Structure formats: C-alpha cells, structure tokens
C-alpha cells in the first residue's frame, strides 16, 4: 500500500513537473534484480550487460543472478531469497514458462513486481514481457538468404521438432521472408528435430536427392553444425544458416564453413526489460503486456568481428 501511495504521489509530481522535463527522484534508492537462465551461456552474459546499462541510466541499483545449475527450481529459490531481501522489482528470463509460476505468485503476495524477459511466463501477475520473438528470428534468417541469393535460388529447410511451438514460429518467420520471392524455390522442408545427428543424416539424404542446393536454412545452430559435416563429407558447396549464435557456430562462420547465424540480442532484451521495469517503478506506467523487439541480427563473415567486439 505504501508503495502504491508512493507511486501515485510520484506520478502526481511527475505530471506537475512534466513541462519542466524534470525527472522525479525517488525518496530512496531502488533495487532491481535480473535473474537469467545460465551464466555459462554468452547470450545471458550479454543480457546482464544490457540490464546493467538500462539500470544505470535510471539510477537504479542493479544485480544479476543466475542459478548454479540451469533449473527452474533454483530460479524460484533465488526469487524467494530476493523476496526476503525486499528488492523493488524482479526481472526474470524463466527457464520454464509454467514452472516459474509459483515463484511469481510468491512475489505477487509480497507485492514485488515481476517482469518477464526473453521467455514468456504463463501465469501469476507480471507487469509485462519484453523479448525477441522466434518469428522475427526466422524472418531475419530468411531475409539474409533472400539478399545473399539475390532473390533467386534453391534452398532446403531443416525444421525443428515437429509440434514444438518454437519450430512453428521459426518456420513461419522464414516463410514471411522468402514467400515474396517466387524464384526462391524450397526444394524440401523437413524436420531434423533440433538434433545434430539428424541434421547430418537428413542433410546427407537431401544432398543425394538434389544435385544443386544453394542454401540450407536450419532452425537452430545444432542442426546447422550437423548439416555442415554432411556438406563437407560430400564435398559440396552449400551455404548453411542457423539460429542462436552459439560460440561453436561463430567459429565455423569465421572459418567460412557456416554462412550465417542469427543472434537474438541478449543485450537488447536485457536492456528493454530492465528499462520498462525502471520506468514502472519510477512513474507507475505499466509496460505493454508484450514488447517485441526489433529484428535479430544475422551474423555472417561480414559483420562477425564487429559482433564479437560488441559483446
């Protein structure tokens, strides 16, 4: 209740001073915590940097925590600890959209706002979600090859696990990009179940089936790395694209073995989610339920160095 009054009064002051463009300073220092999925993954190291930058801009104290083992139970434990510490807001990239709900409910009971980042939360009260959706990642991959092939060529698509929501979203994104170009022919679109072994065997068979393949669009890096082995073994020239920007893929891009990988910037996602939360704490303006961020970056040999330096 106190916080509500504080927010209302701040809002009133804010409106009153709006013409003077003065930002109202809160009475006490605010604390925000960002909980990521796995600190051993460079993607989340980026996310932390983004969150820290946004918090700094708004003068809010920022902490980033990560479960030791990447499990949702440990994330909930961290949330409980943060509730005990009475932080002002929690930004979280949940490992599981459903598994995290009990943690969110506990934060709700303690009246601590929760913001979802990177992955949606399917229950409890959250103030909003900010992330790059999978459709735009797929579209970014498709756009890259449309440009690279000058709108003309033979491609194959290695889909994710049939039935998985991400697999559908990626595929939808790719088609948004390529369907406008009738000269881009999809020779085959088939599943390799997000799996490296299958990426290799499926690509082997596709290479047998089609004498010329210009590009293979893989809906994750793991399949792309498997497909790469098949292409090398067959001594063929096929441009391979993946999604996730895994360190292993980036090395392959550097060596010219893989053409491109899409990075759904962790930095941007961390920045946006933290910024929206800061604004909420300072002004009481609730962020939109879903904030979709811009197109993810396609990382190829052309911008690899620049990308590696930026993270």
């Amino acid at each position, binding site marked *: 209740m106190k916080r509500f009054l504080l927010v209302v009064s701040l809002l009133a002051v804010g409106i009153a001073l709006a013409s003077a463009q003065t930002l109202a300073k809160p009475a006490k220092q605010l604390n925000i915590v960002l909980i990521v999925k*796995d600190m051993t993954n460079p993607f989340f190291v980026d996310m932390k940097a983004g969150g820290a930058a946004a918090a700094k801009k708004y003068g809010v104290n920022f902490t980033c925590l990560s479960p030791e083992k990447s499990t949702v139970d440990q994330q909930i434990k961290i949330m409980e600890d943060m509730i005990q510490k009475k932080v002002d807001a929690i930004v979280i990239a949940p490992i599981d959209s459903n598994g995290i709900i009990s943690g969110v409910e506990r934060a709700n009971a303690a009246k601590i706002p929760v913001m979802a980042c990177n992955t949606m939360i399917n229950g409890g009260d959250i103030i909003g979600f900010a992330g790059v959706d999978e459709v735009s990642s797929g579209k970014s991959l498709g756009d890259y090859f449309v440009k690279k092939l000058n709108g003309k060529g033979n491609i194959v698509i290695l889909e994710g696990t049939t039935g998985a929501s991400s697999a559908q979203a990626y595929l939808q994104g790719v088609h948004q990009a390529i369907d406008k170009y009738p000269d881009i022919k999809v020779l085959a679109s*088939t599943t390799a179940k997000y799996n490296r*072994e299958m990426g290799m065997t499926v690509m082997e*068979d596709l290479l047998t089936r089609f004498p010329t393949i210009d590009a293979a669009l893989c809906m994750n890096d793991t399949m792309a790395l498997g497909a790469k*082995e098949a292409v090398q073994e067959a001594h063929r020239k096929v441009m391979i694209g993946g999604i996730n920007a895994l360190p292993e893929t980036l090395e392959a891009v550097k060596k010219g073995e893989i053409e491109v990988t899409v990075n759904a910037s962790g930095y941007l996602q961390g920045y946006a989610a933290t910024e929206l939360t800061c604004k909420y704490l300072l002004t009481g303006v609730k962020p939109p339920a879903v904030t979709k961020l811009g197109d993810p970056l396609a990382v190829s040999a052309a911008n690899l160095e620049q990308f590696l330096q930026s993270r």
Partner: protein
Amino acid sequence: MKPKMLERQKSGALPARQISTIYRVLVMAFFVLLAVVFVPRFASPGNLLNLVRNISLLCLMGCGMALSMLIGGLDLSIGSVAALSTVLGATIISGGNIFLGVAATLLMGGAMGLLNGFMIARFKLPDFIMTFSMMYIARGLALTYTQGQAIYNLPDAFTWIGKGSLGPVPMPIVFAFLALLVLLFVLRRTTFGRGIYAVGSSHKAAQYTGISVANKQMIVYLASGILAALVGLVYIARLNSANADLGQSWPLDAIAVCVIGGMSFAGGEGNILGLLIGGTVMGIIGNCINLLGVPSRFQDFCVGFVIIVAVAADHYGKKRQ
C-alpha cells in the same frame, strides 16, 4: 508354458530356423526392391554408400541390445551411457590425448554397463527398471558435466574413426563388421555364448544345469555398455563434437533393429545376423523418408507402420511353418 516349450523345440530344429531366416531375408529383399523401383536416386552409388554407413551404425547399436535381449533383458540406457562416456572422453581427446580419451570413454561405458549388470544380477532389479533409471542417471550426469555446452574441435587423427576409411571401406562399416564377427563367434562357438541362449530361454533351467545366471548377466551388460560407448565414439567423430544430447533415439532404434531381425523379447531366441536385416530395413526407412520428401508430420507414422509390416510378415512366416 507348455505350448511355448513346444514352439521353442520346433524353432530350435535346424530346418525350421533356416526357413524362418529365409523368410526374413525375403521381407528385407522386398523393401530393398520397393526402394530401388519407386525411390528416385536410391540406387545411386553415393546414396548406397551413405545408406550402408548408416546401416552399419544401426547394426552396431543393435549389437549391445541383441545381447541383452538374448539373455531375456533389455538395455534402455545405451544412448545416455554413450552420451556420458563420450562427453567425458571428448574432454580428454580435445586436450590432445586421443588414446587416453578413447580408453576413458570405453571404460566409462563399461563401468555404467557393469553397474546395470550388477544391480540386475545381485539385487534382482528388473532389467527394464534398472536400465530405464540408468538412462536418466547417465543423461543427467552428462548434462550437468557439460552444462549444455558442446565439446568440439576434436583432432583429425581422432575424427578419422568416424569419417575416415580403411582402404575403400568407411570406418563405421569396419567397426560394424568386426563387432558382428566377434558376436557371431562368441554366440555360436563358445560355451559362454550358448550359455547366454540358455539363460535367455529360462533362468531357472539354466541355473539347474549349473550355469551362473548372474555371471552371464553382468558380462552381457558390461559388453552392452562398452558397445554403446564405441558407437558413441564413432558418432562424435562423425559429428566432430560431443554433446550431452547424443543418442536419445538409440534405445528404440536398436530395439526395432533387433525385433525386425528376429530377436524375441522373451529371450533366448534370435540369430545375430538378423541384425543385418533389421539394420537394413530401418536404414532404408530413414533414407527413403528423406529421398521421397515425406512431410515432417507424417514421418513418425511411416516409421511405425513399416516396423509393424516387417515384424508382422516375419511372424506370419513363422506361423506358416
């Protein structure tokens, strides 16, 4: 119990067994013929090479499963054991010490297999439960160890065992050939091998004739673990990377290979050369699904359907005798 005994006696007689093998070969030939006639590019040299390589990997997977099925058990942990032993081994291999890494991988696979065998033989845990639990345990350890990251950039001298070839013969084929040869010898020509069939037919009867059931079970699961690690090594060499998600589909693939090849879930029945038939049918399904461009959503259906047709035809043939 009585009819089963009778049936076993009948199929144990040589002519009947040969007829049933011929029938199985015919079923396989039928699938090969279908593929050659109806699947474009199936018979091209490049495709046949890929196919035979994949068939040998399937046969290699089937070897361990065949042993555990012959003794009346089942090893569901082969994929996870392969994942755990290869991520550990790959760490050493990528550090440059190939021999030590390969040895560590096989040792780890053997240790997990022996643990399976020990719990099954000494604590009388059902094979299904023990290996099913081991499937989770080994996968969990592998994931924890790697933290979900792949171990990659393996030295060329190592990847040769998966990508290279001995003369004109690709290495996976060499491994499968050797494994089948050794198993064939052990099962047909040694007392140990015949003991496995005896234990598989009836634990009690085998025990009464003085065969140590526990001993056989331990050795079989030990071998199954080592074979799983071996398949794992060939795979990570081909993929040029080791990851904790290796081999998730292996147990069921291997069971399909064994069942199509004529192994019985009841144990004590089956010819190790049947693996060639099972491997060929399973290899052809996977290959043709991609060559024909079967839609993703429909692929699983096709695999299940072909397995049923193959096994049903086999059983129909047996009944006719």
